[in-house]
């Protein structure tokens, strides 16, 4: 039986791990290579790096981080943040990333999803959808949540599946950093609409939220950051809890 995955996400800025509340107010939580190793040894099913380095001159640091991490970490590694071109994807894959997560560039032009999935295979193309409930619909935001687009997240999810995305990483901007739980409605609506796996993200504050993301949100995988980073829970505890709630996990 296929197991639901738990994915710790590390926000990386200029080669250091940080995690913000609602994308601002960043705190430093250490070295990404060491953290990834600790997580993979602790039973993480995958590791996700989100590069939030804003300026272009520091962009190359992430390649070095990925290179070092992939030599120590033998579970899948997904890297996202600032990917603009096929060349960016190629570089990350060559450094040892197993998947890339594309956000703004996919919203601007779905061709990057189509072209990259044909070139490298759907298995390594994750499309990251950042969405906010604006009353009428879940609207997609880009550029790390700064720009609104007027695009309906659910329709966009379907379009990304058709373009060749292998997975969708769905983040609720309303919930991110709040620790009140995933936006279950958003997750389940997208998950029911597409036939590719959905990774739920944004808002985890306790282990029940992970359970809800899978049971109610119908997500194949759950991504979380702060609850793991600051030692509130270990991956092992999270898995044992999910297991006790009847959710299949790799233990």
């Amino acid at each position, binding site marked *: 039986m296929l197991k639901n995955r738990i994915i710790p996400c590390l926000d990386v800025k200029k080669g250091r791990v940080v995690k913000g509340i609602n994308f601002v107010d960043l705190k430093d939580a250490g070295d990404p290579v060491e953290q990834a190793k600790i997580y993979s040894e602790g039973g993480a099913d995958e590791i996700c790096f989100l590069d939030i380095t804003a300026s272009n001159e520091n962009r190359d640091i992430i390649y070095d981080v990925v290179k070092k991490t992939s*030599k120590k970490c*033998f579970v899948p590694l997904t890297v996202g943040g600032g990917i603009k071109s096929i060349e960016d994807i190629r570089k990350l894959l*060559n450094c040892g990333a*197993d998947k890339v997560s594309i956000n703004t560039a996919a919203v601007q032009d779905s061709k990057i999803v189509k072209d990259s999935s044909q070139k490298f*295979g759907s*298995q390594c193309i994750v499309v990251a959808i950042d969405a906010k409930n604006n009353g009428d619909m879940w609207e997609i935001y880009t550029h790390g949540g700064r720009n609104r687009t007027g695009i309906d997240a659910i329709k966009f999810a379907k379009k990304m599946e058709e373009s060749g995305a292998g997975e969708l990483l769905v983040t609720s901007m309303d919930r991110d950093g709040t620790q009140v739980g995933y936006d279950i409605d958003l997750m389940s609506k997208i998950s029911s609409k597409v*036939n590719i796996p959905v990774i739920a993200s944004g808002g985890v504050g306790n282990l029940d939220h992970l359970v809800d993301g899978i049971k109610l949100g119908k997500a194949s995988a759950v991504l979380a950051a702060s609850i793991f980073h600051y030692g509130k829970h270990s991956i092992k505890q999270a898995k044992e809890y999910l297991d006790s709630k009847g959710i299949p996990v790799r233990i």
Partner: protein
Amino acid sequence: MKVAIVDYNSGNISSVINSFREVAKDKVNIEVTSDLKKIESSDKVVLPGQGSFKSCVDALNKISGLTETLNEFAIINKKPLLGICVGLQMFADIGYEETETKGLGWISGKVSKMNNQNGKYKLPHIGWNQISIVKDSKIFKDIENNSHMYFVHSYEFIPKDKNVISATTDYSSNIVCSVEKENIFGTQFHPEKSDKIGLKIINNFIIL
């Protein structure tokens, strides 16, 4: 001892390289190459593969003499070869991804899209699933039955002769996830991404 990982532009092979180097340390020479002479002279060959069946077969054929060299290595000289993911799928006679494409024909059978039971199962089959070992395989030495392996695929290999199957996994149906035919080994899952247990399989292959 020399192990050659065939580099034929089949997508992302960095993780395969990293894992083999991690296991081999300084004891075994891991060569990443498309050089026919180097492949010929190695003791073992690893055939990775990502992307579609067709794109991998096309990439193999693009390197003049490569399929013949692999054929000589695995079929005539019967030296150990491990295919991973699409690397395993290419053992088949034929694949149906994108369009009908001829495979290497080493293990008779076909590669077709997994049945998602009318959308009940998501594809690709991504994540950790347990393998059910159905036959003693040298690469499963000290690997417990029902161990978790990392999968990512939408197509499955269906061999004609069921005796070659060494492990299966349950998803939308019972999927062939490992084969062994004499000196030819293949895994549908990714041992290079399957944590310590995956590295053990790699080690088992290296020390064959």
